[in-house]
């Protein structure tokens, strides 16, 4: 098993999580008794509570009137249910949401396309020194962005890229290339049989032809994984947003920070805001959960 077992096969790693263990013959066969199963179940339920407590808090608080958030009533259901916090949060966040969408979608698509081409070459069309290039690319995944942030800002100012969405698209595309390259490289290394590439080469197909005719049509699930990965990390990014944009042209993470910061915090509205901000990635997680896990596994080398 190699170090990046988890990263090795995007699809198959996700499948491994879902794979049911072999059916046990009788209670003893998998080494557990009925009692130990009950204990396991109770523990699992307790941990479920730990994970879900913040969800409960967000939900009840976001439907409360401002007078209803006193110390004593913090954990109780709203006395009167109201949508006002949601309206208030939405009014503030709506322009940020639009900006985040117009940022995350193109950034995810562009870095995925570049990653796919790179990954193909590194996995299937290698040249001498490809490993050094790969390590060179890989390191870009791990750097703390603080180390490049100051000159990055200067560079963008010099390039006269409008601060805001275009700047962020550019930054996320560039710094997203390493992870997309890694995901596609591992994907192509496991999914595409060598014989296909070899026979295409023997038939005289060049790199571009092989990529467009053979590889690209096989890349669908690879793209789903990188698109989800990039969309989620661009959507959730805060650091680039803080360094490279301003309040009035920033993405939704900045909007939420503004909504929830300041001297007097409206807890109901910030909770509603936290939920509104999280909805797109939550929808991705729920609808495309299978590939989401695949993406996480593929990112096992990253974080």
């Amino acid at each position: 098993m190699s170090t990046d077992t988890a990263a090795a096969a995007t699809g198959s790693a996700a499948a491994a999580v879902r794979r049911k263990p072999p059916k046990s013959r009788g209670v003893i066969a998998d080494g557990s008794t009925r009692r130990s199963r009950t204990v396991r179940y109770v523990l699992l339920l307790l941990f479920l509570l730990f994970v879900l407590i913040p969800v409960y808090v967000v939900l009840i608080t976001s439907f409360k009137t401002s007078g209803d958030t006193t110390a004593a009533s913090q954990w109780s259901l709203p006395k009167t249910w109201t949508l006002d916090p949601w309206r208030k949060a939405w009014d503030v966040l709506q322009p940020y949401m639009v900006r985040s969408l117009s940022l995350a979608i193109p950034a995810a698509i562009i870095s995925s396309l570049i990653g796919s081409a790179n990954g193909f070459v590194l996995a299937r069309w290698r040249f001498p020194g490809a490993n050094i290039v790969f390590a060179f690319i890989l390191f870009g995944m791990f750097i703390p962005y603080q180390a490049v942030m100051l000159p990055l800002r200067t560079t963008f100012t010099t390039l006269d890229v409008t601060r805001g969405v275009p700047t962020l698209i550019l930054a996320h595309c560039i710094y997203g290339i390493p992870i997309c390259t890694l995901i596609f490289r591992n994907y192509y290394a496991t999914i595409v049989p060598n014989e296909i590439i070899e026979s295409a080469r023997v038939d005289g197909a060049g790199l571009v032809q092989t990529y467009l005719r053979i590889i690209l049509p096989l890349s669908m699930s690879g793209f789903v994984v990188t698109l989800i990965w990039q969309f989620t990390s661009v959507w959730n990014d805060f650091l680039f947003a803080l360094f490279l944009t301003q309040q009035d042209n920033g993405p939704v993470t900045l909007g939420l920070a503004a909504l929830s910061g300041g001297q007097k915090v409206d807890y109901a509205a910030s909770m509603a805001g936290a939920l509104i901000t999280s909805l797109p990635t939550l929808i991705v997680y729920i609808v495309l959960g299978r590939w989401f896990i695949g993406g996480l596994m593929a990112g096992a080398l990253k974080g």
Partner: protein
Amino acid sequence: MHGRIRTWGPGALVLLPTVLLLGYFVYGLIAWSFNTSLTDRHTARKGPASYVGFENYGHLFGEDRFLNSLKNLGVLTVAFIVGTLIFGLLWALLLEKGVPGESIFRSIYLFPMAISMIASGVVWGWLLNPSQGADARGLNRLFEILHLHFLENPWWTAGSRWTTMASIALPAVWQLSGYIMALFLAGFRGIPPELREAARVDGASEFKLYRHVLFPQLSPIALSALIILGHMSLKLFDLIYAITGPNQFRTEVPAIYMWNTLLRSDMAKSAAIAIVLLAVVAVLVIPYIAYTVRQENEE
């Protein structure tokens, strides 16, 4: 030679834009930051700056505030890694033999991973309210209701460095334990069933089975998990920003300190902090990358 270039050339050409982009935006800008860190550019004002060598670094390491931020980071990293590994491994152990409703547990344990640290910071800021007793709020209020008074505490606002940074680590543990669970679960499911059978036939107890057969198989995954969590922790910024705000000495880590220094337009000093942060990450990550690439060459 000509034929070789014809086969290799196109591939190298495809990678060329990436190499140029990363060459500039990763390596070039790191060099730029490093260069700035060697100067006396302590204001936003443009114009010539003179080189002062490693003076900024010397100042940093002689400064209580920076040493405080490094210690905070160390404690945070230990608390975060240990907490996340324990929860992740525990959940994977509980699930790996399969239980009814397994996919529901898995999905719920994993979902915090999809949330931004800013959003989860907003919620955890509410939960980690320091008030206690009659005025208790957040988690402390929950402990009041459950009569678990001994669990009430001021979280990150008072007490030792350990209490403070463990309070910051708690939300991070909440967010990432599910991810580590998924990694370990994939590991467990990837172990051929024959291995377990063979160990049982040989009369190994359940404990020995895990200790001597299953866990050793998971060590590559544990290493990946360690690197991922470690470098995430070193870069942790959003969560602290959202929970305590960026101006808390108690919870300041280098990433936050760098931001605060930048707000005062001290370019050279903030660049120096960033380079120290990079060095710490590099010490962790470069051996790992070298190991990974070498191992793949052998395959």
